[in-house]
């Protein structure tokens, strides 16, 4: 008797309870699932080109990867074998020259923009020009260095190639480093001033070390971008089939991976075309390594 009564009460309670059970086909839930599905499909589509390029490079270029290919001189015409050694070294050397020029200048400029005088007209002009320069067609950097250096020195050279890469790397480094330094909280800088730091010490001991992961990320992305550039090298470093020969060799035409790919892919010889694929794979791997490095070094240590 009592249990019947309480059941009746329970039933009544249930009827007056808020309806919380959703239906799979009900309007809002359905829409939400539909949109989630669309973003999924688009995310996969966006990753598709990258993976297909990687797949193609591995499929077509992977077979020729060997110590010989990585070190040997490129073949001439109907020659068999050969490799891409000088191109790897040439790319590395020119990126190194570019980095040596652009990293110090870029970081110092970023310190000026972020810390020393962010609102001065000089800073605003420099920032604007750096932004314009990031969208600068890379071939123009090559033409510029061609006109100002190659013509004057009367030769294509690794120097000219490195400088052209520096021109392209500089804006990326300046803007990412400035952004990274601006992320350092003002209260941290105040603490350093409160300890009796000069402005140089605040920048050197607190701002730069705290912002360095972001700065390193910017540098490595600029390096990865420069390693893949071909247009600016066309007018500056040209090409060579030999290794750079010592310091003096830097004053002569220099080989690079990107130009090798360009040259060899258009040749009517299977051997060269295969090497162009291998060179592409090597180039992509180099860029991948730099991107991973940027990720790892970009992590905040403390």
């Amino acid at each position, binding site marked *: 008797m009592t249990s019947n009564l309480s059941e009746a009460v329970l039933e009544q309670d249930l009827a007056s309870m808020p309806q919380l059970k959703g239906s799979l086909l009900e309007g809002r839930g359905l829409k939400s699932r539909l949109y989630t599905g669309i973003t999924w499909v688009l995310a996969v589509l966006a990753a598709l080109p990258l993976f297909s390029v990687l797949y193609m490079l591995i499929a077509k270029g992977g077979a020729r990867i060997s110590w010989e290919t990585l070190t040997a001189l490129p073949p001439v015409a109907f020659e068999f074998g050969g490799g891409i050694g000088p191109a790897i070294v040439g790319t590395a050397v020119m990126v190194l020259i570019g980095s040596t020029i652009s990293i110090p200048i870029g970081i110092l400029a970023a310190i000026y923009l972020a810390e020393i005088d962010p609102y001065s007209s000089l800073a605003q002009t420099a920032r604007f020009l750096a932004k314009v320069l990031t969208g600068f067609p890379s071939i123009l950097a090559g033409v510029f260095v061609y006109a100002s250096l190659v013509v004057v020195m009367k030769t294509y050279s690794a120097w000219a190639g490195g400088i052209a890469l520096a021109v392209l790397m500089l804006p990326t480094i300046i803007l990412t480093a400035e952004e990274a330094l601006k992320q350092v909280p003002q209260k*941290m800088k105040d*603490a350093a001033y409160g300890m009796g730091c000069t402005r140089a010490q605040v920048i050197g001991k607190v701002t730069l070390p705290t912002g360095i992961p972001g700065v390193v990320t910017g540098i490595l992305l600029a390096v990865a971008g420069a390693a893949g550039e071909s247009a600016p090298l066309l007018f500056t470093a040209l090409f060579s089939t030999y290794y750079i020969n010592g310091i003096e060799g830097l004053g002569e035409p220099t080989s690079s991976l990107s130009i090798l790919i360009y040259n060899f892919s258009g040749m009517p010889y299977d051997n060269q075309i295969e090497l162009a694929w291998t060179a592409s794979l090597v180039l992509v791997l180099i860029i991948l390594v730099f991107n991973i490095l940027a990720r790892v070094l970009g992590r905040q240590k403390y």
Partner: protein
Amino acid sequence: MSATAEAVTSQAAAWSVDPKDTVMDCRLQKIFYGDFLAVRNSHVPIEKNRITGFIGPSGCGKSTVLRSLNRMNDLIPVFRFEGSVTYHGQDIYDKSVDPVLVRRYIGMVFQQPNPFSMSIYDNVAFGLRLNRFKGDMDERVEKALRSAALWTEVKDKLKNSGLSLSGGQQQRLCIARAVATEPDVLLMDEPCSALDPIATRQVEELMLELKENYSVALVTHNMQQATRVADTTAFFSVDISQGGRTGYLVEMGETRQVFEDPQASLTKEYVLGEFS
């Protein structure tokens, strides 16, 4: 100068301390931010081994005065100070004085805990390294962390990031960092305003211990805090009579006297909670 301002000056001057017990003597005439007169006519002595509390409503200039004591305000380009702040017989606003060096002798703890993005150890050692300290670094770091009542909590994780600590621990780390170089004056700008009640209590207990060795100037928005820790209290208020918002010292005295027997009617209204 208006009559009230003169009355204020004479009242402030009424609180006089034996010069030999005074570690800093701030006699400011005017503090400007650009054209804006922020604080005027205040005489604030900071006594040796005591806690001097600065209280008053928002905008009364108490933080401005505190930050004038180690020339932190010099970082603001439009800041201008008229008057003198004597520290060991030298006016720190004298032209020959380097503000950077002033800050090495007069430590500061800020409103928001602001440890550096480095290890706990490096945070505390920062000032010592800055001063090219040559002695036993480990010992001094331990001593500073002990005096900030943080040693037992962090002694096994000195290599961890200072930012991994809780808010209250971070603030005590900042105090350890400030006292590591053994400054003789410690300026604290609302050090508990970002902390929960338990952490606040710990920092307050810490202040009472610190005054054994340091002279403390403390800005606080919390009157209970002033009564709990301050030996001397300076009450600032805002004068809006001449169209501006100029802060000035209304009354200064033993904390008990300021709260229980305030001389000025403004002080009385404020400590009774009639305005804030």
